[in-house]
């Protein structure tokens, strides 16, 4: 499609269309004096609006993370984040020196213990909210955590 004007150079449009195909772009827009030509692929007529809308959404994630007090990583899919349900001290194993409950790359089942949070002299086992693969562990053994802090990513 193009903003048609009488006496428009058809060759120019063809050229633009070729460039569009060669480069696999979805849209090209050129402006020269008071002539403006936009070439875009079919089915994307609303496309001009789309990047405008998408940009702020993409921006929102890092800025939210920057404002947040805890290291809540908003850029991740929140469905994958296991966050601390309580304040306490994290232990990655059932006893000092014992093997860690999980490691990066491990497959876990829903309900399986990921780690322990000690609060008020009580060891609270934190279960996996869903089955999946542990892609990231965001805390270290023995570290204090606050409510809502991201602990583990399961995808």
């Amino acid at each position, binding site marked *: 499609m193009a903003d048609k004007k009488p006496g428009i150079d058809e060759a120019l449009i063809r050229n633009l269309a070729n460039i569009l195909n060669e480069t696999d772009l979805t849209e090209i827009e050129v402006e020269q004096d008071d002539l403006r030509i936009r070439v875009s692929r079919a089915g994307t007529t609303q496309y001009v609006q789309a990047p405008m809308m998408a940009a702020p959404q993409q921006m929102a994630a890092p800025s939210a993370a920057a404002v947040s007090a805890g290291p809540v990583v908003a850029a991740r899919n929140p469905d994958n984040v296991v966050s601390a349900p309580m304040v306490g001290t994290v232990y990655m194993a059932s006893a000092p020196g014992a093997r860690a409950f999980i490691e990066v790359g491990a497959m876990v089942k829903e309900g399986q213990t990921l780690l322990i949070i000690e609060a*008020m002299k009580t060891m609270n086992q934190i279960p996996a909210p869903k089955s999946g693969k542990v892609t990231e562990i965001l805390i270290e053994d023995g570290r204090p955590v606050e409510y*809502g802090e991201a602990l583990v990513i399961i995808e």
Partner: protein
Amino acid sequence: MPMISKILIANRGEIALRVLRACKELGIPCVAVHSTADADAMHVRLADESVCIGPPQARDSYLNIHQIVAACEITGADAVHPGYGFLSENAKFADILEAHGITFIGPTAEHIRLMGDKITAKLTAVELGIPVVPGSDGEVKTEADAIKTAAEIGYPVLIKATAGGGGRGMKLAHSPDDVIEAWSTARSESLAAFGNDAVYMEKYLTTPRHIEVQVFGDGEGNAIHLGERDCSLQRRHQKVWEEANSPALNVEQRMKIGQICADAMKKLKYRGAGTIEFLYENGEFYFIEMNTRLQVEHPVTEAITGIDLVHEQIRVASGGGLSVTQDEVHFQGHAIECRINAEDARTFVPSPGTITHFHAPGGLGVRIDSGVYQGYKIPPYYDSLIGKLIVHGRTRVECMMRLRRALDEFVVDGIKTTLPLFQDLVSNQDIANGDYDIHWLEHYLEKPVE
């Protein structure tokens, strides 16, 4: 009692900031706890450390004992200041802290329990020599009992269902002529409403003032009073305006009731700050209840005594005793506190939202205790108090003039506040004369706006 090396402030809003300031002045590191809704709060920003303890709902965060104790553990805080409200009068909280070797900056759990129950509180007050509302010893069973008891108490008297509540089974008698009728009506109403016709009798106060005495004990049998506050200007039992000294008391009355309260606290071996609340009518005090914590309106007392009550609380909690003796306490000038709420000044409908512009008044004798700032978003989950304006002057007249000036300087935009109500009150003749009782404000608010 061990020395305190780090204090966790188990509260939010202006009082958390108030306590934080005292910690800083005493050189004690402090930990702020907060809900997810309060991550941007001023007390969190200014604290040495902060811990998010839960979601916005207070029961899951500021009232969550488990999370608060865990926050003490991970930060190494060895004392907790509860502020007011939330867990400040929760005996179980005080017990749990003690079991964990953490100092509760407040009285013993035993004293919290004693004063937290209306019946044991009144019995304890009688034992300690604090005047209470005169009434029958238990049930009034016969007509003859009713006449005799009423004569002893003095009219008017209120006859109430022992099983009662909500005003049912409650009748007023003004003289011996109507006491029998009131007594039998109360009994039959009580039987109909509660299935029990037992009634008791109390003196009825028609136009009392609310006057409360600030006390402080070291827990070892030493105690002082810091004078009174007049909190008669109330709406739905919520204090709106507090002042000290009370315009209704003279020096002898002040020192007499103060001494009674201080002596009672010595006998009880009370520890820390407390407030004994009274109704006051015709020169007599009648005990209502005792609050075993710091009060919202404590800055009024600080203004006229020059004593920092939170410093004093921390000092007592760390075993340092009271910093002053009774004869070192002097009352200087007059102070008034206005509670600024995020509410409509007439309807009192809460008005949460973002503060778009904030300018606090200043100058000699003007104090603002507030955790809000320009751009601050008032969360809808908590109470509507956004700040307190406390003004001090050498005389009540000077104080009122200064208050009027300070109110005119105060700007809070973006939300509705109760500031316009105070601008009305400060130019009211009854207020200027100190001539008001606990019903005054509600009557005033019923009148159409001029």
